[in-house]
């Protein structure tokens, strides 16, 4: 059930200018979850003294990953972030790829609740964690009496 929707979401992400600007790559997608990674780049550094990537770039990765996870929900045709809280647990090691994993842990008709973590090569110690609420935009209702 991964395959069709996964391919559609992959194609959509390739059209997303900001995901391209950060060279994001989908590692896995489907079943209410997604994993997306991004390389370390000098232009993304937030602290020039250490070369550590800016928290904002990590947020962008986690937001994208969470949104992609929501898009795998059956019937979802669009999503937008309502609220996102990011905890920065430690500086990401400069030069290493950052990988985000997101899971929709609860989905209602209009809202998806998502958790995400970000890691570098040391996968046992997350760099950041996030929780968010996302809108779930659904296609035309299957029955005419269905109300929004």
């Amino acid at each position, binding site marked *: 059930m991964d395959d069709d929707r996964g391919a559609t979401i992959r194609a959509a992400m390739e*059209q*997303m*200018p*900001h*995901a*391209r*600007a950060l060279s994001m790559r989908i590692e896995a997608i489907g079943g209410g979850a997604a994993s997306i990674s991004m390389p370390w780049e*000098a*232009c*993304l*550094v*937030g*602290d*020039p*003294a250490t070369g550590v*990537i*800016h*928290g*904002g*770039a990590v*947020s*962008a*990765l*986690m*937001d*994208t990953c969470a*949104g992609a996870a929501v898009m795998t929900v059956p019937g979802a045709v*669009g999503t*937008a*972030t*309502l*609220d*996102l*809280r*990011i*905890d*920065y647990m430690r*500086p990401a090691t400069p030069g290493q790829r950052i990988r985000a994993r997101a899971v929709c842990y609860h989905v209602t008709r209009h809202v998806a609740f998502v958790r995400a973590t970000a890691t570098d090569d040391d996968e046992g110690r997350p760099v950041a964690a996030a929780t968010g609420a996302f809108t779930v935009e659904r296609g035309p209702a299957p029955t005419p009496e269905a109300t929004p």
Partner: protein
Amino acid sequence: MTRPPRRPEPVQVVKERRDAALRALVEGVPYIGFLGIRFDRRGDELTAILPFDEKLIGNPLLPALHGGVTAAFLEVAAIIELAWTLLWEEMERGRIDPAAPDMLRALRLPRTIDLTVDYLRPGLPRDAYARARVNRSGRRYASVHVEAWQDNRARLFAQGTGHFLMPDPG
């Protein structure tokens, strides 16, 4: 014995010093340049400006700013406001001379502990602005609130609160 009253510094000298300090703070961070964020200064008040660019788009169909860009913009505005508040005090007391680049490099940026972003409406494909307010600034921790808008100051498109770990003194 009383000294003769000192003449106030010429306004241009004061402005130049403050602008140099702000420039050094902002230009030191590559990611701020990557997003294209600039800062406008009126006295000690800062406004962050995010000029629209194609690469900031998240949803090309609407089109709308990427939610991650909005989060990053709020975080940059908050952290620079906090660093600027610290820098301003040091500068006004004459403890930091922005003309000496080493002094500014020694001023480390606060580190983000967490950031909560409230997305109020889609970010439109046009310039965005943000202002941050330091609600609490202690020796070790700070809490900063930040608001972002586009065409209309009263219609925020996002707001956020972040907690920050202060840089070690000295």
